[in-house]
């Protein structure tokens, strides 16, 4: 790891100020950033640690509205009793990230800010139609995830929370790489007031995306059988040592059927 200067932010405003130093980066759980720095894939001049800011922690549920602080760990999301009642699919999804030690450190804000094309949270937030709240504005998930490791976040912008309306039905199914624990394909489906949404992670050449084919089939009938014979185009899907685009296309349909079955269970 290259030399770095560490700062522990006292508040979000303090973090915003500290971020102006050199090539500073925000540090939360560090489950991606620290390994990336160790391999010198990332070499920030300064780290601004926001993981201890109480304002950024915790899950709030008010009626159907769920708000999760950006520095809430995967462990805390997966074990939050209120969330397990309001949106069990998201708590379940958080329990599938990485391994127990990683879930104790990694945070929802860190995951979506990084927007790894195989991360779980981007699919969840896209399917939930969530809003990403920053220290400057609110951004709809549909406009937030821009591509591989790219988001709508501007220089110096800090995610403070994510918020969404709990859907009537939702579920996530993931076919994971056993070594990295990332999704080879993950599909999050929701059925709410505004219809059906299905988001796919791990598969897209350009990162997380909504599947028109799945959404169209489920809009008529939110049942796994509605996806029988569904063909997802392999165009625009990743091919790598783990899986070909064709294999991923097939997995998307399989994971979508399982997710709908789980959402209806």
């Amino acid at each position, binding site marked *: 790891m*290259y030399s770095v200067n560490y700062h522990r932010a006292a508040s979000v405003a303090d973090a915003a100020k500290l971020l102006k130093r050199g090539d500073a980066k925000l540090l939360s759980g560090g489950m991606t950033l620290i390994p990336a720095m160790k391999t010198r894939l990332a070499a920030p001049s300064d780290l601004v640690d926001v993981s201890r800011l109480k304002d950024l922690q915790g899950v709030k549920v008010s009626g159907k509205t769920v708000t999760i602080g950006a520095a809430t760990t995967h462990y805390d999301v997966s074990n939050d009793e209120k969330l397990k009642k309001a949106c069990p699919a998201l708590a379940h999804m958080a329990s599938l990230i990485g391994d*127990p030690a990683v879930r*104790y450190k990694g945070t929802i804000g860190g995951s979506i800010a990084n927007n790894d094309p195989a991360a779980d949270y981007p699919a969840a937030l896209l399917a939930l139609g969530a809003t990403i709240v920053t220290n400057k504005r609110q951004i709809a998930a549909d406009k937030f995830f821009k591509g591989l490791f790219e988001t709508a976040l501007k220089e110096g912008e800090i995610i403070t929370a994510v918020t969404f309306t709990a859907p009537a039905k939702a579920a996530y199914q993931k076919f994971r790489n056993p070594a*990295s*624990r990332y999704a080879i394909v993950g599909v999050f489906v929701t059925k709410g007031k505004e219809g059906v949404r299905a988001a796919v992670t791990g598969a897209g050449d350009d990162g997380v995306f909504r599947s028109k084919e799945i959404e169209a089939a489920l809009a008529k009938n939110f049942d796994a059988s509605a996806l029988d014979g569904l063909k997802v185009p392999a165009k625009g899907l990743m091919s790598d040592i783990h899986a070909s685009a064709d294999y991923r296309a097939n997995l998307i349909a399989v994971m979508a059927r399982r997710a709908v079955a789980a959402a209806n269970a």
Partner: protein
Amino acid sequence: MSDVSFTVNGKRVSGSVEDRTLLVHFLRENLGLTGTHVGCDTSQCGTCVVHVDGRAVKSCSMLAVQASGSTIVTIEGLANGADLHPVQAAFKEHHGLQCGFCTPGMIMTATDMIARHPQGLDEATVRAELDGNICRCTGYHNIVKAILAASQAMAKGAKGKARQAA
């Protein structure tokens, strides 16, 4: 450089470290606590697991400065003098180790796992919870047995204490 201070295995310690120093290196090189190992160095194998503020985390993926102010327990802090911690005793009894390299991380993960499952553990849960710990001797069978036995022994111990208190 930053000044850091911790409570490690019940003792206050402080020092001055480069900000890029990983917690595992601080423990091993500054404090001489070499029970915590570096295996894969890519946060997959879990041999560097220690407890930071009561949570089992990978000390190879955390800076020492990030943990400053925290309470840390390493494998050296589990036994009470010559009396092994119940998880250590169970690993010995059930031969839950072969070469022993992964053992400190396995035991730190196991103590955290048992604490989070006061209702008890079954084999499937133990195996799922060991997701982040790799044993390259592939000695999982006895590791799982040891953790199940320790979980039962500790539940009995807790009940015994409760009865004494009542």
